[in-house]
């Protein structure tokens, strides 16, 4: 049977997630419960949202290094303004989304490398976050808390939320005209231009859409942790990139997979728990997490080669 290349791309992250999950269940059968699954995966929800945000930026051949500090900034806004004065909080978040759209415009018009611009912006977001919340604290908005701790039937919230994020991102990016336009810019910018579209607009839309998902990530994170800290999500910048690549996306060429990206984010979260269950000392955990990442990516590369060989 010949699998389509898209299916093949989804297979690696899906199988790695299944393998890790099987390992966790084998080591700790009690994790195989409603509460167990929720504990394993609830921190994956904000990471999955941030991964989708990163994926949208990568779909237009850019990279966002400021995602970690931006999510931290949003978390700080959510734990202070959004809780105390919701209207002002919403205004601040809307303005930050507009800033992202502006970044897209500047990067396109001035032909700047997105890595440099977003690296610079990461200090801006980090500074704003510290100004808003100099010391860890704040209170999560009650509705965010309620959503993240809800107990829906069948599966825990973490699973439903991940599914919801995956489906929403899939519809937005793989099924809608806007998604086609964004991926088209990544695939062949010239042909999009020749067809009479405004690439500046497309890039601004992509950045704004990414910012929306990043804002959701920040609010979800505060909903889980109840309070915020200016450094709460620093790891997200690199975690999200790893999640996209793990899920079958590419750095260039507009090849992305929203469902794969969510699975990638879940895999990354689970890898940490898996190592704890293995009783690997925390000193070695980060290294071991890297080893898992390298193993999965090597598998991806091997499959890519297979795919290329078949195309000829």
């Amino acid at each position, binding site marked *: 049977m010949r699998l389509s290349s898209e299916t093949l791309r989804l297979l690696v992250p899906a199988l790695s997630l299944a393998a890790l999950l099987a390992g966790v269940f084998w080591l700790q059968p009690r994790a195989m419960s409603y509460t167990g699954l929720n504990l394993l995966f609830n921190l994956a929800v904000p990471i999955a949202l941030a991964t989708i945000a990163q994926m949208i930026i990568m779909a237009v051949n850019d990279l966002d290094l400021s995602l970690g500090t931006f999510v931290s900034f949003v978390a700080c806004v959510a734990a202070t303004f959004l809780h105390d004065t919701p209207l002002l909080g919403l205004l601040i978040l809307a303005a930050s989304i507009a800033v992202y759209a502006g970044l897209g415009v500047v990067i396109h018009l001035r032909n700047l490398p997105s890595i440099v611009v977003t690296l610079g912006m990461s200090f801006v977001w980090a500074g704003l976050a510290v100004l808003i919340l100099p010391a860890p604290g704040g209170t999560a908005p009650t509705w965010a808390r309620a959503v993240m701790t809800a107990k829906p039937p069948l599966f825990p919230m973490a699973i439903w939320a991940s599914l919801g994020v995956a489906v929403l991102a899939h519809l937005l990016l793989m099924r809608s*005209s806007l998604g086609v336009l964004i991926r088209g810019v990544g*695939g062949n910018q*010239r042909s*999009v231009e020749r067809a009479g*579209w405004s690439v500046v607009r497309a890039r601004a839309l992509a950045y704004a859409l990414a910012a929306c998902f990043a804002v959701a990530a920040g609010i979800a994170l505060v909903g889980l942790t109840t309070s915020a800290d200016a450094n709460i999500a620093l790891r997200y910048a690199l975690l999200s990139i790893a999640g996209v690549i793990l899920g079958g996306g590419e750095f260039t060429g*507009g090849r992305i997979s929203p469902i794969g990206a969510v699975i990638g984010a879940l895999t990354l979260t689970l890898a940490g728990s898996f190592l704890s269950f293995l009783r690997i000392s925390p000193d070695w955990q980060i290294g071991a997490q890297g080893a898992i990442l390298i193993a999965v990516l090597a598998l991806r590369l091997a499959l890519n080669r297979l795919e290329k060989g078949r195309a000829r």
Partner: protein
Amino acid sequence: MAVSSDLPLLDVADALVRFGEVTALDGVSLRMMPGECIGLVGHNGAGKSTIVSVINGGLTPQRGQISAQGQPLRGYGIALARSLGLRCVFQELSLCPNLTVIENTRLMHRDLGGAGWRVRARKVIAESLDTVFPGHGIDPQATVGTLSIARRQMVEIAMAFSTAGTAPRLVILDEPTSSLDAGLAAHLLAHVRRFVGAGGSVILISHILDEILDTASRIVVMKDGCIVDERPQGGFTHATLVAAMGSTARAAGARRSAAAGAEVLRVDPPRGLPFRAARGEIVGLAGLGGHGQTEMLLDLHERHSPNWWPARTPAVAFVAGDRRLNGTFDLWSILRNLTAATLPDLSRRGVLDRAAEAERGTDWQARIGIRTPDMGLPILSLSGGNQQKVLFARALSGRAPVVLMDDPMRGVDIGTKQEVYATLRAEADRGRTFVWYSTEIDEMTLCDRVYVFRDGAIAAELAGESITEAAILTASFAEAAA
């Protein structure tokens, strides 16, 4: 807008386009009438692609007027051109490889949006594919990147002829048959005739002259940015068309040495004639751009350079034509750019001998005539021609016995060219071998031997006095589809 059959669909008058010092279009006027297929022919750099860019709105001429239906147009651009029913199939494929055929259709047709666009787009492209290439067997849900080159081209052509909102009225086909086999090409040309018969207009560019002679109702010949000849169908034969593309008067070529040195390069490609080059020989690679010359150079480079550890004496040196992309180090000085390839020769135990480097710089500055007061100035302070001289000096100052040149004279003024030609000849006499790809026929007449490429293989070998513009043109343009 109502389309009248006696008013031109589009009328370009007196278009002038300059890129820096180079005049790409020198006052070209072209009128496209409904029900007409214009065959556009010319050699490299004749201005075909430039006039196409002007017509499709991608390039605004510095001078000239574009009008449609007899009305002058203001602010002519891609969007306006598309709304007039203009469609373009480019030589290099311009679909998004990461999207499916249906999604590409959506991108091409801006009016397809709204709920259920996938169904509509699928219908549009499937209908067009069925009309142009009956029995094509292409799945509209396939990702374009997974299709073969021929199928991608078929999709692109069908896309140009498809209707969604604005109907196509003027379709530009730039080498549309380059990756289609004879059967598919026949389907396409039959469709072109049908389309023209129904009142559409087509501009056809092809290196296969018989396609032009059979299909075009009017043939326009371009050379050096001008239209040099224009006749209705039947006004040209294969021979007169080739003759019209060439120039009538030309300066005599440089002296040619009887190359009898030892063979230094040999390639036996699977198709076409074998490639040979001897010591002290200047071998030219000619033909239309993109027919396999650059691939041959890269192949030669790969065969003769170690792929793991650099050799002490390099076997080949490479002079790139695209300076900005793979030639100069923009942030470095002229001297550093010159010596970049030969640093091991100028250093002792891994430490660079600055005095030797400076000496080599002054030596080559004098030998090849780099016009600068100070070799320490940044490379970008030089004119394009002088930058290219630095790249030549980089290759020639090394010990490599073979120099590969990938269209190195692109955008270089004539004076600089003459100086470099003299240096090349002198170096060849000292025993160096040059393999020279150029898009300019005049340069090929300076070579000892010339291989003419067509469709990725060597189609002809010319030597000595038989290297003439007419012979190269004849070999570059095939009689019929291969």
